[in-house]
């Protein structure tokens, strides 16, 4: 069910909750309700949320037909630009809905005011669960620090962007514009996950002052020279530091983009950046919303039959997935664990978690929900108890067997380290721009940081031509050895890469590059700065 729209934009498995929706449960209450019933329910839920100590922001609920909701779900935001991919997803979801295979329950937008959609035809119980759940999400959006920089008037920009893209389609040909959008979308997933503005690269620190340099003039001069060389080398680098923001780099430095193309890159990059905190806090956010809705629904004191239906719905929402984790299930268990640790700590936990036993669990949950993302929540609170309740296991694919997986461990610590590494890169390989003027020919040199997982060759070779078209020059991709960037997680995933996987170095020559053919003959030549 439920998913902040982020779910769809990035089709990585862990954020795919939307497409899953929930298998339609057979027994649904047939209680008739109208708009004023929903309004009353909303007021009630709001009052209960306030009683729980949540200062819930304003939320507008739209009671809307399936076409409307599935359209928003497919494009991630209402009014987003037109694209065949959204149409494909819309059709798939709508079909699944029409055949009664699954249905979306709710959709919430992180905007000002918060907006949520209630699907017409959902049962009364489903609507009350959704309303309660949405209050959880909106509190999280409002308070969590990763959303602090989110532009909550973003929909205006989305709409304006869509209009401009449509206009470009009319002017430069729809097929041409759509192909270009395809290319940009290939890289949009690399939008930086950081909320903090990145610090501008600084040169190596100022020339060291050597107080006793007068005594050793030769050595002092050599040291100064070495330092100056260092600074010169730094100045000569472009970009000065490896840049993970591929679209940002292309936007700023690709020489051959036309204005309309540059505009499209910037529109898509902004949208990807809007979604990135939602991806980053998926588990924490969903878990928190479940935590909130289960408390509100308890307060509603439903009649038995309605509660039974609620319970069944809740169970299907939190159903464990087989090969990935269900964010609703894991997230909820994590927050419950936080509450338990601070309310009823063991002696060991009293030492491990300062304040345990003194601060109330509920207060601590709210404190943490305001600062945690998935990685930090899991790193701290994925205890053996949580692992057991969620039945977590780590798996690996059996070599050579496409459909067989082997359980590698059920140890909470190993699972935690693995999850932390996986989540910190969100299913996206780390690709950095290390040279924007490779071979002194304006070629783009990309570096893939291995971090224990190789790139898919077919997809890499399929994506590079798109990069070359955007950059307007040849593009190179090289895989380099690198340990996971997340500290304290050098477990299984930090294993050194096999030499064979480090070898791949791909080149996609741009047709305009005369020298490209020469270079194609020696793609192994790593000495590109010479």
């Amino acid at each position: 069910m439920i998913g902040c729209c982020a779910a769809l934009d990035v089709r990585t498995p862990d954020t795919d909750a939307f497409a899953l929706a929930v298998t339609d449960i057979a027994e649904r209450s047939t209680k008739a309700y109208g708009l004023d019933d929903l309004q009353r329910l909303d007021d009630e839920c709001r009052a209960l949320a306030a009683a729980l100590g949540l200062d819930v922001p304003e939320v507008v609920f739209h009671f809307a037909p399936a076409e409307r909701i599935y359209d928003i779900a497919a494009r991630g935001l209402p009014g987003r630009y037109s694209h065949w991919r959204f149409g494909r997803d819309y059709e798939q979801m709508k079909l699944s809905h029409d055949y009664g295979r699954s249905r979306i329950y709710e959709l919430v937008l992180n905007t000002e005011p918060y907006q949520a959609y209630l699907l017409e035809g959902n049962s009364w119980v489903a609507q009350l669960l959704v309303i309660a759940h949405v209050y959880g999400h909106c509190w999280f959006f409002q308070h969590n620090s990763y959303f602090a920089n989110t532009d909550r008037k973003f929909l205006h920009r989305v709409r304006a962007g869509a209009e401009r893209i449509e206009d470009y389609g009319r002017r430069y040909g729809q097929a041409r514009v759509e192909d270009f959008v395809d290319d940009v979308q290939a890289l949009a997933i690399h939008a930086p996950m950081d909320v903090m503005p990145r610090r501008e690269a600084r040169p190596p620190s100022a020339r060291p002052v050597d107080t006793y340099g007068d005594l050793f003039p030769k050595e002092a001069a050599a040291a100064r020279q070495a330092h100056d060389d260092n600074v010169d080398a730094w100045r000569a680098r472009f970009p000065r530091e490896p840049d993970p923001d591929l679209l940002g780099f292309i936007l700023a430095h690709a020489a051959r983009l036309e204005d309309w193309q540059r505009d499209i890159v910037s529109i898509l990059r902004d949208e990807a950046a809007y979604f990135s905190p939602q991806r980053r806090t998926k588990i924490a956010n969903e878990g928190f919303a479940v935590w909130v809705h289960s408390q509100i629904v308890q307060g509603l004191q439903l009649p038995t039959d309605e509660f039974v239906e609620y319970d069944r719905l809740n169970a299907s929402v939190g159903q464990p997935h087989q090969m990935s984790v269900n964010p609703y299930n894991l997230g909820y268990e994590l927050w419950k664990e936080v509450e338990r640790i601070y309310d009823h700590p063991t002696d060991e936990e009293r030492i491990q978690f300062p304040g345990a036993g003194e601060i109330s669990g509920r207060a601590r949950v709210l404190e943490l929900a305001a600062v945690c993302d998935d990685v930090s929540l899991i790193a701290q609170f994925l205890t053996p108890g949580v692992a057991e309740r969620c039945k977590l296991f780590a798996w690996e694919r059996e070599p050579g067997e496409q459909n067989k997986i082997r359980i590698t461990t059920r140890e909470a610590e190993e699972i935690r380290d693995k999850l932390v590494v996986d989540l910190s890169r969100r299913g996206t390989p780390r690709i950095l721009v290390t040279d924007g003027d490779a071979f002194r020919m304006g070629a783009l040199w990309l570096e893939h940081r291995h971090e224990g997982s190789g790139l898919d060759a077919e997809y890499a070779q399929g994506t590079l031509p798109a990069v070359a078209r955007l950059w307007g020059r040849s593009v190179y991709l090289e895989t380099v050895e690198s340990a996971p960037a997340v500290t304290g997680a050098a477990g299984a995933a930090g294993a050194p890469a096999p030499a064979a996987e480090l070898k791949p170095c791909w080149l996609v020559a741009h047709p305009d590059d005369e020298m490209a053919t020469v270079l194609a003959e020696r793609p192994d030549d790593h000495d590109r700065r010479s």
Partner: protein
Amino acid sequence: MTVLRDPGIFHDEGSRDARRHHDRVHKQIAEQLKSQIGEEKLITAGPDRRIRVPVKGTKEWRFIFDRGKADGVGQSGDGKPGDVFDLGGGKPGKKGEGKASSDPGSVEYEVELDMDEVEQHLFEQLGLPRLAPRAREQMETDSIFWDDRARKGPVLDKKATMRVNFRRNASRGHARIGDFERDDIRYLTYRESRRPKSQAVVFLLMDVSGSMGTFEKRVSRLFFWWATRFLRRRYSTIELVFIAHHTEATECDEEQFFTRVESGGTKCSSAYELALSIQRTRFPLNEWNVYIAHCSDGDNWADDNPRLLELVAEAAKIANLIGYVQIDRAQRYPWGGEHIYGLLSKAKIDGLETARVAKDEEIWQALKTIFSPAPEEVLSA
């Protein structure tokens, strides 16, 4: 805070984008089919068999982890470390798999089509060029357009009514809408669009001489097979005349045309001669559009060439189009020379299109060269 009913404005964005996706897939199927046009399996499929066409190029490219080496974290009560799960072959693309196993864009279709759909995809861009209405008495009613306005009619047109009202008021000095009179009222009404029937006769001339090798024979049959399929499908009022020739030309029925084996020398002029005489006797020009399509290996008896040129020029005057397809795998005649392709290309006859086929994949190109209507003709066809 508030629960609002959706304003109920018609939302069509989803299905509009879905249509764009359909178009895209459609285009890819057509592309795919064009390259397979030389494959017999398309032809031997028969009306009931279904053909599987893989649609490539719909992958969403992006950088992902190696799909062969997936790992991840899952949830299940069963199993202890070391146990192997079989996920079952039936659902390899199950969503929500581990981080790297997911194939974010591997939406690869294999569309099943029957012959009817294959032809629909393929023949979309083909048509008879310069098809002119050659009317006998029949007129065909094509379609009904609801675009006319009248003072009487079945459906009230409010917009038009207001426009008339406004104009009338304005002419009296106060431009506004109001004070409707009976005269202002306009109705939407329809008109029938009538189109004169176009009649066409297509002469299909095939070289069956001894110099035609297995490849040439096969390709010329393929070419004509597709051509007849297309012509019959598209034009209800079309006559096909099949002519096989070596040194002499004979008119034959369709089955003979596609099956019979002959040999001997080549005199291409004979075929044109026969076609012209048939045209004169059976297909008067004021009633018929005339097309001629000719397949040959290009090897003509040298003494016949001047006569051939003469006849082609004569035929070109009466025919809307003459299409000549030369099938020679070896491209034995690199520069001009004796063969018909060179001969005809040099002659620069108006209304003559030529194409060369050296391999199966070029059959489509040949079809397209010869049966390519002007853009506006595609729409009206």
